[in-house]
């Protein structure tokens, strides 16, 4: 076997590759190495290189590497957080500027800030008015319920007394009374329907309260009659 052929296969031989483990090739290489100091030397050198490569010590990076990694991860998290919650990011940035007094506004930016302020004031006022309306509505709804509860007993009692006396009334007067009462009750029914469709309609709530008062007043007026 020639040196040139052996040398080409020496790495496989050093690694104990299966392709060389059987047949005559392995034996031929071993025979050659036994008789050729040069190839034998090369084989031992390759063995040493292979062994030394496995024993190479681990190298230690600079201590700052961990800090760099943590910083990179934190930056990534901030970017992700800003993408998910842009408003928070904006406010965080504004807060950072506020606390460090780092403000540099151009003229268009100042105009933009002024416009934003106007919008904010308008929205706040409207919102406040809206809150007042809500408060009014809640108050009126409560008043409506209270009115119904407090007047119901009085109205029922008056109605019971009037029913007993109605039979003795002048038929024309009685018809007039019943027409007025029906008108009020029809109006109350309609008002309830309207409120069911538009629970926030404050006008209807106020109308309902007025109708209760009108009914109570009518009964009270009739009650005063001696006949």
């Amino acid at each position, binding site marked *: 076997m020639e040196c040139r052929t052996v040398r080409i296969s020496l790495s496989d031989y050093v690694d104990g590759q299966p392709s060389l483990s059987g047949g005559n090739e392995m034996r031929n290489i071993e025979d050659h190495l036994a008789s050729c100091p040069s190839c034998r030397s090369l084989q*031992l*050198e*390759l063995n040493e290189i*292979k062994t030394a490569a*496995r024993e*190479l010590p681990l190298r230690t990076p600079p201590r700052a*590497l961990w800090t760099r990694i943590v910083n990179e*991860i934190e930056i990534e998290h901030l970017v992700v957080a800003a993408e998910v919650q842009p408003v928070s990011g904006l406010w965080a940035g504004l807060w950072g500027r506020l606390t460090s007094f780092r403000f540099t506004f151009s003229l268009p930016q100042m105009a933009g800030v002024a416009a934003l302020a106007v919008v904010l004031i308008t929205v706040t006022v409207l919102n406040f008015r809206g809150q007042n309306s809500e408060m009014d509505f809640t108050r009126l709804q409560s008043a409506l319920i209270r009115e119904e509860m407090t007047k119901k007993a009085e109205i029922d009692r008056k109605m019971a007394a009037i029913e007993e006396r109605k039979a003795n009334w002048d038929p024309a007067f009685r018809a007039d009374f019943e027409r007025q009462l029906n008108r009020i009750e029809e109006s109350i029914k309609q008002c309830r329907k309207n409120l069911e469709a538009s629970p926030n309609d404050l006008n209807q709530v106020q109308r309902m309260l007025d109708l209760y008062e009108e009914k109570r007043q009518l009964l009270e007026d009739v009650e005063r009659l001696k006949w």
Partner: protein
Amino acid sequence: MTVKEINNAKSDYDLTQASANGDMVAFELLYERHHRRVYSLCLRMVANATEAEDLSQEVFVQLFRKVGSFRGESAFTTWLHRLTVNHVLMHFRKKGVRLEKTTDEGEISEMQDFIQAVTERPRFIDRIALDKAISDLPPGYRTVFVLHDVEGFEHEEVAAMLGVSVGTSKSQLHKARMRLRDLINKGKPQRGS
């Protein structure tokens, strides 16, 4: 329980699960256990300390992103090893490093190599000299040598990672070893000097 005891008590898998939930203490323990191995691999593959630091940083940031996908089906060291190798190979591709390039100075003919063969073999290879010689290898040789001889991958694995045939991997390894032998011998003080 000291940090060292916690470090010893927790398995890599436990630490990966905790890291996946954002536990930076667990991730730091993982870093402490494996950063030298990752850095050494990067350093030997790119043969440049600054690049190796950058790559190690990228590997650990990538690890933090992906650590939840580690299912413990293989050893964590194997998994991290693959992650690191793939990252460095990707870096080579981005840089346009031609891994198929086998030499930066032209092939030394087998006959020339034969003539240059030393008659007196080295009794001991200085590991520092070997490290230096590895860094002087052309990228293609260096990658195969580091993956096979330093990191212990089989030729089939190296071939798959580099997208070459097993025969090419073997051929590259043989040439890398031969070149290393030359570099080490050249670096030795001459007799009588």
